């Protein structure tokens, strides 16, 4: 008999519920599939046919995941997540990108630290702006009722997006280089990953995070002073 628990756990792995609740949902749905499968086998269906019919109980797993989440948390949960996470996150991403492009158009030259292939580029005005951008992301997320984690996620969202792009870019580049018959020097690739990682992810990420933490600190101070004055 197929491992229905494993199948459900895999298909619904991204269900945004707390661990215990998620486990319960997985166990309950797996039990349903198990009962359904066994009833088909009792009716005399072959193993293969029974598996196929049981699997047809769920035509679209991502849709089921979304429906379960809405049923358990309510429609407002999805709307809240949009306002607390995705809108502030994308706004920080857009602002940081637009600001960098504007600086480049205005002729700001990045500062070069190091020599030759190990040189890392830093654009100081951009990094300074990221403090503000990170703070803005955290502020918007907190204002929409976002948790501390959601606010920090919104702050550092641009570097998370960049990290994903980096992770995709390097393997693709390696495949392309091989396809066109060029020798790939892995030490050069590793150096490039490290160099670009520091210049475009680590340092900007730290600036965004610092901005986010600063905004959270200021917001918590304001809340404390409000609660003290009773306003």
């Amino acid at each position: 008999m197929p491992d229905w628990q494993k199948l459900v756990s895999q298909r619904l792995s991204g269900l945004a519920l707390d661990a215990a609740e998620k486990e319960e949902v997985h166990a309950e749905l797996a039990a349903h599939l198990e009962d359904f499968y066994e009833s088909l086998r009792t009716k005399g269906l072959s193993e293969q046919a029974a598996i196929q019919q049981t699997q047809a109980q769920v035509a679209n797993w991502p849709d089921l995941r979304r429906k379960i989440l809405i049923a358990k948390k309510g429609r407002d949960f999805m709307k809240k997540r949009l306002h607390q996470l995705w809108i502030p996150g994308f706004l920080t991403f857009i602002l940081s990108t637009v600001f960098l492009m504007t600086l480049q158009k205005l002729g700001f030259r990045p500062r070069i630290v190091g020599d030759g292939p190990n040189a890392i580029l830093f654009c100081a005005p951009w990094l300074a702006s990221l403090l503000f951008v990170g703070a803005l992301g955290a502020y918007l997320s907190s204002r929409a009722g976002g948790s501390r984690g959601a606010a920090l996620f919104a702050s550092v969202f641009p570097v998370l997006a960049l990290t994903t792009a980096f992770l995709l870019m390097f393997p693709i580049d390696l495949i392309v280089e091989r396809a066109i018959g060029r020798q790939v020097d892995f030490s050069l690739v590793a150096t490039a990953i490290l160099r670009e990682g520091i210049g475009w992810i680590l340092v900007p990420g730290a600036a965004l995070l610092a901005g986010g933490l600063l905004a959270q600190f200021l917001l918590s101070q304001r809340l404390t002073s409000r609660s003290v004055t009773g306003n």
Partner: protein
Amino acid sequence: MIGPGIKRGTAELAVLSVLEDGPLHGYELARRIEQQTKGTLRFTLAALYPMLYRMEQRRWIHGSWETGSNGRRRRCYRLTAEGKKKLSPIRQEWAELFHALRRLTKVPHA
């Protein structure tokens, strides 16, 4: 075509009515509905559980884990007091709707 609102209403009425006879786990509930409606109403897993969870959030039903005689653990749903209270007006609404449709379409009573 039957709209999602009517479909949902029918499904909720079916679940509440079947649970009125006693607690059942999800699979058994779906099987009972299919049997009692002679296959007219059928629930796949994907249709059943989001509805059960939604009804549980509204406190119409309550689910708890129970171990059956075969040693298997299943989550059984039972009707709550709130669910029992809800059942009567829903039945009334559906009776009115069917009555109105029968008059309109002149379909003879089954």
